[in-house]
């Protein structure tokens, strides 16, 4: 009987080039995404809280103002107020006006009987930023041309026993 000849297994080389191309493209994409995300959020130490709700960023452009410890107000890496010129609010006013008229959704308010912005402005400030800087933003928000009335205060992750909840649970003596 005729024996079957064993066929030699052929070495098949896979072409890795397209896969590597794709993977590199993905990495570049992620790098860019991270860069764009970080433009909104400055490196700040936020106060902690337990009653805060988890932040779910809305789609599209989000109105955020970062306030540094020295009072510098930053949006997308640009300064809109610096404590060196304490009475110069021109840039901040323009920014808030822009938020109120382009980014934020506007609705008719039954109390003031006007179309006013209904999206919140997120304020991110350092734990030890003096409140009067944040009060300045709030004051400018109340301007007749701006009328932003909903605000959100950004808070950080709870790390140690420093929140109000900890005080309530343990008392101030501990």
């Amino acid at each position: 009987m005729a024996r079957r000849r064993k066929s030699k297994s052929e070495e098949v080389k896979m072409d890795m080039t397209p896969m590597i191309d794709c993977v590199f493209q993905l990495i570049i994409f992620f790098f860019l995404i991270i860069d764009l995300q970080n433009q909104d959020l400055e490196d700040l130490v936020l106060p902690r809280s337990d009653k805060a709700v988890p932040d779910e960023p809305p789609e599209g452009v989000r109105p955020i103002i970062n306030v540094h410890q020295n009072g510098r107000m930053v949006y997308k890496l640009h300064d809109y107020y610096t404590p060196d010129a304490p009475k110069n609010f021109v840039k901040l006013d323009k920014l808030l006006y822009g938020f109120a008229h382009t980014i934020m959704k506007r609705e008719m308010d039954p109390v003031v009987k006007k179309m006013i912005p209904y999206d919140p402005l997120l304020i991110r400030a350092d734990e030890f930023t003096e409140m009067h800087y944040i009060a300045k933003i709030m004051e400018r928000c109340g301007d007749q041309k701006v009328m932003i009335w909903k605000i959100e205060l950004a808070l950080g992750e709870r790390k140690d026993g420093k929140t109000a909840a900890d005080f309530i649970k343990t008392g101030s003596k501990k």
Partner: protein
Amino acid sequence: MAGRKKKPKELAETDMDLTPMIDVVFLLLIFFLCMEFKTLESKLSANLPKDVGVNTTEAVPMEKLDIRIEQVRWGQEVKDPNGRTRYNLVGHKVKWYVGPQPFRDKESFYRLLQREAKILQFNDTTQKNEPKPITIKTGLGVTYGDVTWVIDMAKYAGFETITFGGGGGARKKK
């Protein structure tokens, strides 16, 4: 003999081992996929008064609970241990006023908030019985962290609506 020519060497076909590179690239890809882009963890919502300031519309009278935060001691500015260009405040102390009544300890302040939160009043807008809205006012040298702490406390006590009133100016620096 000098006339003899050297044969050109044949270029050897060398296969580059792509495995380590692919490993590294995949690890990078997994890192970026797992990374949480959202660095902001939580937020507290608050409102700014719509019916004050330059606005000419009539305000609906409503009883509010006024909380004022005043600085007792600014504290010592200690450089951030993580090398950031910021400081931590050590020994920073504030006191709270509910109406004219001052509070220096957190326990009695929280107890009063709890008591006040149980007093409900009818809200014309929501058509519900709710605790009074809280208005927070701040004095000189009060920080963003002090304010978020009070909001956290108020939310624990049962208050729902937080608004901001006027604030003090800039702290006089030494």
